[in-house]
């Protein structure tokens, strides 16, 4: 019955106006989710509860809430609502990931290469992800600047950028940065560093240069020098780190390297915001906790390369028990679609309570990225970044039905299923055009049977009431 209601609503949307504009109106007006099980990620689980959303924000949480006549209403009976998932380590929607030509590429910024049409965004939405920390790759000891985005698929690129998210930057330790140096591309001269000690030296050297650079500006501002220093886009972000205005997300696997980095940060008086991957972080959990540094880890990925051999599935649990803010990230377009199951694994390994596990993909990454005032939990006053699930999100039988950002729906499974027929029709028409025909053949290529098409057939069965 409930499914039919959603589908019926969906059909209405498509029949009247284009779906997206109806949903866009919803942001200005009201959305009511009725009678759902709410996993708040901050105050436990609320049974049979309503959520009222006005102007994109959660304004009421309670029972028997009233909405105006033109509000969009979702019947949440038997369903679960969670905060939108936040992926603290992603390279989705980037047209370039690594600037490998130099060991320090802090002048680069992934904001310049965002591609809002990447289909992986939509797939992540289908897995309940609403927000992601888009990072430069791990080729360089000091990589490029990050951008925190909301996955507003279909909207202009500037609307993806998370307003007010503090700027960050990627660092990288271990095998990746030194491997780039030892295996230069054809035509490229071998790059320093090629050892772990070189990596540490590169970072220390960069901050010494940044300190000097800051001094040159301080002198100029104090009128000690006449000529304004050259603006240096490489060193400016490093000065921001020294001033505590930019968050460092440091890729690394081995605990000795991460500890070394923490010591360099101590030396220069800044904080490492997150250790990324940190597969051995359990070995130095107290040292991490003491500095207020967080960790963003995998649930159960290990031994896929030499420096990942000492990883254990209990890593997240041990860190959590030591008071470290832990998040579970995907680092993958594909894994991003089921971070809910990765969080569920944390309950299995080490007995982390349900809400704490859920926090690892919601409130904890929100804190790591400095956006927890706006998102990360189901609380009054926060933006309505929410997911409606068909079952408990830690169940393998669960899947998102609705994913919304600031009260606007960006993924609706019912609508998606219906759209497939429209797209198939459009494709058929497009394939008949001359421009789309292979030359000389007089017709387009015959369709190649693929797994993807078989899945589509299964989905069609599902729409017709079949059980999967």
């Amino acid at each position: 019955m409930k499914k039919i209601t959603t589908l019926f609503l969906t059909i209405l949307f498509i029949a009247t106006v284009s779906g997206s504009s109806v949903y866009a109106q919803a942001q200005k007006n009201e959305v009511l989710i009725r009678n759902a099980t709410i996993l708040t990620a901050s105050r436990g689980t609320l049974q049979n509860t309503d959520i009222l959303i006005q102007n994109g924000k959660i304004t009421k949480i309670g029972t028997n809430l009233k909405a105006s006549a033109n509000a969009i209403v979702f019947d949440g009976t038997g369903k679960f609502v969670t905060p939108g998932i936040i992926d603290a380590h992603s390279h989705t929607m980037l047209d370039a990931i690594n600037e490998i030509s130099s060991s320090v590429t802090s002048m680069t910024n992934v904001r310049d290469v965002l591609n809002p049409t990447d289909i992986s965004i939509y797939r992540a939405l289908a897995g309940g992800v609403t927000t992601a920390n888009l990072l430069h790759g791990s080729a360089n000891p000091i990589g490029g600047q990050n951008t925190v985005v909301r996955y507003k698929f279909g909207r202009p690129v500037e609307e993806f950028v998370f307003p007010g998210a503090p700027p960050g930057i990627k660092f990288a330790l271990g095998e990746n940065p030194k491997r780039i140096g030892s295996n230069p591309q054809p035509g490229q001269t071998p790059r320093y560093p090629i050892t772990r000690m070189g990596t540490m030296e590169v970072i220390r050297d960069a901050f010494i240069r940044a300190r000097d650079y800051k001094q040159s500006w301080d002198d100029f501002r104090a009128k000690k020098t006449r000529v304004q220093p050259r603006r240096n886009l490489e060193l400016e972000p490093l000065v921001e780190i020294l001033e505590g205005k930019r968050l460092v997300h440091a890729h690394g696997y081995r605990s000795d390297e991460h500890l070394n980095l923490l010591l360099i940060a101590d030396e220069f008086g800044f904080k490492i915001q997150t250790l990324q991957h940190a597969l051995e972080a359990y070995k130095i959990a107290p040292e991490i906790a003491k500095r207020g540094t967080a960790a963003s880890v995998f649930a159960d990925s290990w031994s896929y390369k030499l420096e990942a051999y000492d990883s254990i599935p209990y890593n997240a649990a041990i860190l959590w028990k030591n008071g470290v803010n832990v998040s579970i990230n995907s680092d993958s377009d594909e894994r991003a679609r089921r971070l809910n199951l990765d969080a569920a694994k944390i309950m299995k390994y080490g007995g982390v309570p349900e809400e704490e596990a859920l926090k690892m993909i919601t409130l904890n990454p929100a804190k790591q990225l400095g956006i927890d005032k706006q998102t990360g939990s189901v609380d009054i006053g926060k933006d309505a970044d929410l997911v409606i699930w068909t079952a408990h999100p830690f169940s393998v039988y669960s899947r998102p039905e609705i994913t919304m950002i600031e009260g606007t729906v960006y993924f609706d499974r019912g609508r998606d299923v219906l759209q497939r027929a429209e797209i198939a029709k459009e494709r058929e028409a497009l394939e008949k055009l001359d421009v789309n025909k292979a030359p000389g053949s007089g017709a387009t290529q015959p369709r190649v049977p693929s797994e993807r098409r078989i899945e589509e057939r299964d989905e069609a069965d599902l729409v017709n009431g079949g059980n999967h």
Partner: protein
Amino acid sequence: MKIRFILPALLAVGSLFSLSASAQSYSITNARIVTVSGATIENGTVVVRDGLIESVGANLKPPADAQVFNGSGLTVYPGFFDTLTSLGMQAQAAATGRGQGGGPAAQAQTPQNVSNSNYAGGLRPEESAIDELKAGEAQFETNRNAGFTTVVTVGRSGIFNGQSAVINLAGDSVSSMVVKTPFAEHVSFTTIRGTYPSSLLGTFSALRQMLLDAQRHQELQKLYAANPVGMKRPEDDKSLETLISVLNGQMPIVFNANREIEIIRALDLAKEFNLKAIIAGGQESWKVTERLKTQKVPVLLSLNFPKRTAAASAEADPESIDVLRLRAETPKTAAKLAQAGVKFAFQSGGLTTLNDFYANAGKSVENGLSKDAAVRAMTLSAAEILGVENRLGSIEKGKIANLTVVRGDILGKDKTVTHVFVDGKLFEQKEKPATPAGGRGAAGRGTTPDAATAVSAIAAVGGNYSVTIDIPGQPLSGTFAFTQQGAILSGTIQTQLGTSPIKDGKVTAEGFTFSSSVEFGGSTIEIIVKGTVSGNQISGTIDSPQGAIPFSGTKNP
């Protein structure tokens, strides 16, 4: 004393000769005259004298000394513009080859760039098309015969392609060809192999740093001019010097951008530094009309429409719907720009068959663009964007006599370019096939007499070659299968991107050239391949709108 008299006399003789050469006057009578700036004259006369349009009107009597053409059944248009080409440019060096790094192939054919610049090759905005432009009008024959009289030309390598020039396609010296130089600085969002920036990330930060450096350069120069005492003198950096005029809005900056997101990135950068931007390519510019209009950014719209050119391999997935949509939508772009009030002009976008230029302009008309707007986009709108509208782009008294005379409608199916005037100089066409005796046999189609006479001195290149194409970061391997018949080269090129036939293949004394179309990322890319042969080795460059890529190969035994 005597010298004083002789010198002016010599000068006078010199100018007399040049006068007599160009003082030739022509009248085209009884023709349909599309003035573009005003109403079309259904039956009128254009008088050309001394390189300029002397008069135009319905009831004009041709001057007595003019050579008169009966234009009955002909239409006279302002000479057509191709607003982005690399015509006359010397073999383009790969971006990566300049200055540093580069493989052996790249190094072999790229001279070390000598410049007082602190920036790497590929980031040298000071490079100027006229310094590379080959003199001589014969090289432009194909383009002229197709009806083009004025083009923008610039190299295609590097992030900064350099400063372009507007040239007329006639004249025997570079200086006589130039209409305007520099016209604009041209930028490709590409990378430099083996050095910074080697990714799109770095491309943007490198551009940003250079623009900031240029801003500072200007400040330092001012400070130093005011009082050099106690101040280190600013470096004499030509790259920054050039960028100052871009920053001050004196020189437009043309961004090669086709995809919506590329155009947005260009517009963002232009906004950040308050640059006078122009978009070149513009396949998806119809998606960004609002911003183009707000920022007053014109488009040099490519008429190289994407189409499927190769059959997919048996294992391939069906093409993505985005690709199918792009091919369907591109011919509608011009009409949508016109409707939104975005200024645009057409460019060939690397088309190898120039007749497709008019065919695709015609497709734009079928998709809602008015005929007048289509003609304007190859004449006056182009002149306006290039800043030469007071001299070119319409048939008006006093303007430069660039005219294209056509039998039939230029946007229709049946048409022949019969005469082309460039700077008042007449280039008559062989009307095929009606008048086999007419003209001077220089139609520029098929095999040229040059190729036939050169048979004895040409290289031997037939055979199959295993080739590596040095795409930065992901070298592509493939096979060139060459069949040589005298000076004619045919065959195929085969890579992971598919198999494409060789077109317009020629063998010369040093090597070979040919063009081809490659399906890549959903669009059709026209490439021009130039190579040399040495024993069983070949090497050279592949020129595409995206830049020049070196290749090298070995003949299979």
